[in-house]
């Protein structure tokens, strides 16, 4: 109940800024379209070669592609690919990254050194290269893209959680649980983790935008989700070959992709502002403003 009330108040504050309200509205629309895509009168696979590369019209609002498929239908179904990949990737990153950060920050010593070296190795290569190498191993599929993007997100969760744990580790309420004989696992997951949610939640939103971008980039390079499954990156890749004949082909899906990424970014930053103001007392480490 308390959680519901606090979620409600965060949502209210989020809606107060016109930018975040618009971003939320846009994401809501995209998500609904992705979920209800099957109920809409859209078919992303129906080919009609005589209609190939027709500009936007009343019948095809976004025009048609090189084999006469409706680009709007492919954008809507592509949203499903993008959002699913992003959600799965962020879940993988959080489920692996948060415990790594918890253990590293809580125990310190060799566990911290070993886990953070692992995270450093992940960070040393640009995310896109790492994801490509992963896909080379796993083969080209949506699941492979999801896992590859997810693994590149682990370091950010590990680092943020670790920083958060370090700032809470010596606080009285954590020491008190230890003094009363609470186990390390209880302390990590029941005492520290519930007090670390704000930055982790902000990171979830921010990483959604990164994951969507990375998935689209992989598809653009031709190693992401395999065609004919609609994907925004793949549409831009093909659209680039028809810039002279059909500039709308690469431009319109790009607008939807960009607006989605921007919306997650805007909401992430607003949330950071709202949650960090509120949790400033609880996390004095952040007041120092680490770069």
């Amino acid at each position, binding site marked *: 109940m308390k959680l519901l009330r606090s979620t409600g108040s965060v949502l209210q504050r989020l809606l107060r800024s016109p930018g975040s309200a618009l971003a939320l509205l846009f994401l809501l629309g995209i998500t609904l379209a992705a979920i209800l895509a099957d109920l809409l009168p859209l078919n992303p696979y129906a080919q009609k070669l005589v209609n190939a590369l027709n500009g936007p019209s009343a019948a095809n609002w976004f025009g048609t592609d090189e084999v006469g498929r409706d680009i709007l239908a492919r954008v809507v179904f592509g949203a499903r690919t993008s959002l699913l990949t992003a959600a799965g990737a962020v879940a993988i990153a959080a489920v692996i990254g948060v415990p790594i950060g918890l253990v590293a920050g809580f125990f310190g010593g060799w566990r911290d050194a070993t886990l953070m070296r692992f995270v450093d190795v992940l960070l040393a290569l640009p995310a896109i290269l790492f994801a490509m190498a992963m896909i*080379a191993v796993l083969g080209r599929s949506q699941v492979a893209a999801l896992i590859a993007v997810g693994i590149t997100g682990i370091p950010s969760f590990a680092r943020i959680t670790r920083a958060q744990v370090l700032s809470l580790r010596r606080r009285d309420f954590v020491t008190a649980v230890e003094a009363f004989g609470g186990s390390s696992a209880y302390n990590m997951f029941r005492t520290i983790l519930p007090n670390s949610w704000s930055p982790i939640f902000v990171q979830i939103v921010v990483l959604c935008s990164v994951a969507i971008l990375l998935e689209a980039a992989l598809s*653009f*390079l031709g190693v992401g989700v395999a065609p004919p499954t609609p994907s925004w990156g793949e549409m831009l890749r093909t659209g680039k070959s028809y*810039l*002279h004949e059909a500039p709308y082909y690469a*431009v319109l899906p*790009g607008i939807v992709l960009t607006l989605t990424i921007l919306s997650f970014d805007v909401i992430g930053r607003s949330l950071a502002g709202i949650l960090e103001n509120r949790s400033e007392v609880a996390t004095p480490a952040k007041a120092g403003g680490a770069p």
Partner: protein
Amino acid sequence: MIGFVLRRFGQLLPLLLLASIGIWAMIFAVPGGPIGMLVGENATPEAIAAAEKQFGLDRPAVVQYLDWLWNALQGNFGTSIHGREPVLHLIGQRLPATLHLAVAATIVSLVIGIPVAILSALKPGSWIDRVLSAWSALALGVPTFWLGILLILLFAVELHWLPSASGYVPIWEDPLAALCNLALPALTLGVYVSGILARFLRASLVGELRADYVRTARSKGLPERQVVGTHIMRNALLPFVTIVGLMMANFIGGAVVTEAVFTYPGLGRLLIQAISTRDYPLIQGCIVVILVLYIAINMAVDVLYAYIDPRIEYS
């Protein structure tokens, strides 16, 4: 100072070793090697065995790795299975193109990012701050491959000012052609990074503007230009240098997407080719070179610190 550089170098070695083992293990985890692609689908088992023997792929994975490591330590990264050329030679051909793009993109990002950050930091909360912050968000949110496409549409398809595909021309051979070829990829990458730089420098500047020494400088009547130019910038630049260094390091291998948009012959595209043809020696070589450059740039940034901030000692 020398001790510091050596120590950092010592930290680099285990990282490289770990990365190379990781990549090797990943490559061997995949079914289907480069030989299948090389000899074709209809090759006899004897032909495949002969080709495997020729490239030493019939030996156990650990032996192959140790052999590679021993040669790599002597500066020999092996021969590309597909290009049949020494790996270092192939990388050497692409590296100048990548460095050209990295430097050009960094210049573009600084030229856009620094003024944006200063203008918005001087009047936090004003309309100009809001407009410029929105601009930074836009620069960060627009995917580079889409921005690249838009720039091609405008400058190549509509205006015919610049080529839509960028080749590599050394700047010392034909500066004008080099700039024409670099303009669009550098602008694409530079705009994106300027968003990061502007956001970061703005936060750093806003923090410095509140510092006591700024109030002192102002109260003794120094002109604003001098307060910002010499006092604040010097302090705000410190964390900024790290970010610029990180960005440059990222361009070395991470500009894959931009290189793909403009079919620019950089190191990133060489690595994509290597991955798609499972060219083990070339993949290993590319990644090791990218990592070495990445860490070397980071090390150079650390050393640069001493010049900007005399408070840092390399003890």
